[in-house]
């Protein structure tokens, strides 16, 4: 018998409960049973809030099981629970979503400037306020010639650029980790909002072929679903080297999630585990990466930017510089609070560095080397609101990448059980009866609303900064100040402490 006490207590108000059993039908974790009335099995509750949301009488409440463990500032309940789990199973602890530990969140220690008197703020309701962003390699300079009619012509041929209407793109989440309906919602929303969704490493379902211009296709270590057609039905190709939640770790989609459709998309037999190795087995050095970058450029006839995604680790600046010099047109840096469908908890909670520091280091390093324009920087790993977006762009990002925020917009309650395949909201699951719960139209609308809202808020921030174009914020660290940060952190972020003027 398991010694692990329940994490949550499910309370049912039997006075108001009408015994409609909706909660029983909705609970995908098998917590609710009906024995002449609803009886919860507390141990199975993950606090996904599906039953709470759908109870017509609001008769259900879920609370933390506070009295389980005797208080200790050192031996926290989750610490002891994990030990108990491992004592019972002898296994690696798996988890989902981003790092929940209370590390300092540096976004919350940065403040944004605003205009007063000497430079006027600009009203985004009355003046144009531009968020348009282009991803891709840019030359350091342009060259012009005059033709016979004395007309000026551009003689520099620019490398492929991907246009974003708003500098927010959806993160790589594979079909397999999330449902086809979730993929559909992301693709539709990307199209509506003039931005991009990223297929992740699981290939792309044929139903999404019409969204080519809004899709980033990923090439990861498992090479699932990678064909010439796949590479060419995209706006951009991304090589995934690392993921913020699990730097240095591969992926594992269990066989039970590999049904007919996923089998076709990933090009593996039904029911087999889809294992993404930790490294790419053809990339054991930067020159190998360069070969893959150019192999992809050849396969796509140099019509698409190629991006490389890495997790934020100690030496990220030098690694990013190498990647840019290896030919990447964009670098996605994923911080240690970035999300995942499944990762060993010890890796997720202890490996990597904060995205804020990684981003600042990479942007500065590329500038110091004079190659900042050679690649766009995408910043991922827990962007929670438009304030984070503005701060990331001011630190030097061209655009930000949102995964968890996008899932939350679709209904995710961050219960961290993505790896179980039981997602009650139809997002991180392949069970048809659960997938059905997510209406792609509704999901797309909610995602578009989020991007639109953040876009408006970014315009307000730009207006208050007295600038009317996102490129005047990009890398403008002068408009940020740090609060409650030590001198070294301020220096690493390249910002001054609050209270210092210009």
């Amino acid at each position, binding site marked *: 018998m398991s010694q692990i006490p329940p994490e949550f207590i499910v309370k049912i108000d039997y006075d108001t409960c009408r015994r409609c059993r909706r909660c029983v039908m909705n609970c995908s974790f098998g917590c609710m049973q009906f024995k002449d009335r609803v009886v919860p099995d507390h141990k199975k509750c993950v606090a996904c809030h599906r039953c709470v949301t759908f109870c017509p009488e609001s008769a259900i409440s879920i609370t933390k099981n506070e009295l389980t463990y005797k208080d200790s500032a050192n031996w926290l309940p989750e610490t002891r629970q994990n030990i108990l789990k491992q004592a019972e199973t002898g296994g690696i602890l798996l988890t989902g979503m981003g790092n929940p530990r209370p590390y300092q969140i540096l976004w919350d220690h940065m403040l944004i400037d605003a205009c007063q008197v*000497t430079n006027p703020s600009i009203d985004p309701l009355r003046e144009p306020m531009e968020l348009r962003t282009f991803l891709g390699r840019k030359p350091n300079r342009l060259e*012009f010639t005059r033709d016979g009619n004395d007309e000026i012509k*551009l003689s520099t041929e*620019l490398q492929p650029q991907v246009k974003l209407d708003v500098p927010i793109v959806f993160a790589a989440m594979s079909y397999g980790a999330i449902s086809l309906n979730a993929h559909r919602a992301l693709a539709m929303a990307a199209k509506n909002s003039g931005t991009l969704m990223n297929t992740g490493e699981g290939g792309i379902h044929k139903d999404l072929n019409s969204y080519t211009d809004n899709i980033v296709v990923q090439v990861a270590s498992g090479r699932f679903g990678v064909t010439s057609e796949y590479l060419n039905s995209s706006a951009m190709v991304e090589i995934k080297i690392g993921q913020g939640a699990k730097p240095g770790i591969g992926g594992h989609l269990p066989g039970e999630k590999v049904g007919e459709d996923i089998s076709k998309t990933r090009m593996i037999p039904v029911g087999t585990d889809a294992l993404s190795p930790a490294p790419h087995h053809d990339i054991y050095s930067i020159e190998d990466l360069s070969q893959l970058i150019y192999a992809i450029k050849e396969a796509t006839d140099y019509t698409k930017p190629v991006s490389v995604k890495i997790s934020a680790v100690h030496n990220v600046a030098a690694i990013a510089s190498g990647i840019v010099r290896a030919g990447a047109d964009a670098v996605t840096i994923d911080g240690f609070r970035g999300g995942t469908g499944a990762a060993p908890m010890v890796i997720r909670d202890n490996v990597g560095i904060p995205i804020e520091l990684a981003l600042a280091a990479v942007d500065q390093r590329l500038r110091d080397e004079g190659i900042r324009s050679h690649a766009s920087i995408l910043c991922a790993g827990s962007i929670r609101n438009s304030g984070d977006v503005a701060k990331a762009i001011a630190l030097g990002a061209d655009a930000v990448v949102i995964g968890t925020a996008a899932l939350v917009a679709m209904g995710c309650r961050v219960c961290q059980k993505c790896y179980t395949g039981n997602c009650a909201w139809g997002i991180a699951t392949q069970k048809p009866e659960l997938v059905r719960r997510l209406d792609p139209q509704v999901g797309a609308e909610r995602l578009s609303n989020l991007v639109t809202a953040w876009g408006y808020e970014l315009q307000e921030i730009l207006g208050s900064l007295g*600038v009317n*174009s996102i*490129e005047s914020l990009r*890398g403008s660290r002068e408009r940020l100040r740090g609060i409650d940060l030590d001198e070294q952190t301020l220096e690493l972020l390249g910002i001054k402490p609050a209270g210092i003027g210009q």
Partner: protein
Amino acid sequence: MRCDCYIPSGCAVSGIMSKAGERMDGNDIIRSIALMHDRSNGLGGGFAAYGIYPRHANEYAFHMMFDNMEAKDQCEEYLKDTFDIVLDEEIPTRPGAVFEQDTSGRSAECGTQPITSPPILWRYFMDVPEHRTTFVSEREYVVEKVMDINSKFTGTFVASSGKNMGAFKGVGYPEDIGMFYKLDEYKGYIWTAHGRFPTNTPGWWGGAHPFCLLDWSIVHNGEISSYGINKRYLEPFGYKLELRTDTEVVAYLFDLLVRRHKMPMDLAVRALASPFWKDIDRMPKREQKIATAIRQVYGGALLNGPFSIILGYSRGMVGFNDRIKLRPMTCATKGDDMLYMSSEESAIREIADPDTVWSPKAGTAVIGELNWEVE
């Protein structure tokens, strides 16, 4: 002299140019900027003049400011090592000078200010030794030296470093600065002027406009809200932004785009004050391609915030506003020859009876070029 303060400012600008290259004395520009006395607060004024040193037209004229003799001696050692000094002399001044005519408005209470406690003002006419330009062009060499002096020598400041031109600036009302520097005795074919209203800190002599590098001179009314990124954009190209004033970036951006990247002047202005995407999207294809590429590649050079700017250089004068014209600028012409630009129309009418007067559209450059060639 050096002040580690960033000084956002409101101001007045004025510029006069003879496209035929006729040289005129500094009285007109002084009267023009004097009329806009109220736009300044006595904490800074300055002038740039082109064509003033015809006898030394082929030498780089360095206008220098030194806090003390020690700073001057140190810097002179450096100049002797790096240049061939043809002539050096004190810049002639009229200590305690004031502009005699009545100036409007607040001057009644504030009065004019006799110019006092200037730094040591010295000018050097210099050649670049030939053996120094094996690996870099002559102008690149001069830029490097200016960056070196401004960043490494305390109490020393290069006010201007072009050929046959010079900047005359300091703390005070611009009309008094003009009299102090005896500008009525110089003759030039382009004159620009600036009256300064710094808002939170006292001005300093080096911090007055114009800001110059080689023959580029910038007078600027406004504040560059995008200064942070413009500075970071310029740094990898070797520019050292040590003056902690936003106007500095404008001079260096023109140097980068026009001199080093060889962009035509109108396209350089298009990079600095880009058209909006909504307008680019409606342009004819060829123009659209150019405008899009400029924004993609030169996003870090885009100037944002309120400004009206007059750029002076050996071959001409360029005036332009920010993209939504948050600061005033009026232009005027008289005959085929004269071009005027100013914060206020009255400052033009004070000195001329123009044929046409117009307010240029936001983000649109007015470019006046000499009818004849100069280097």
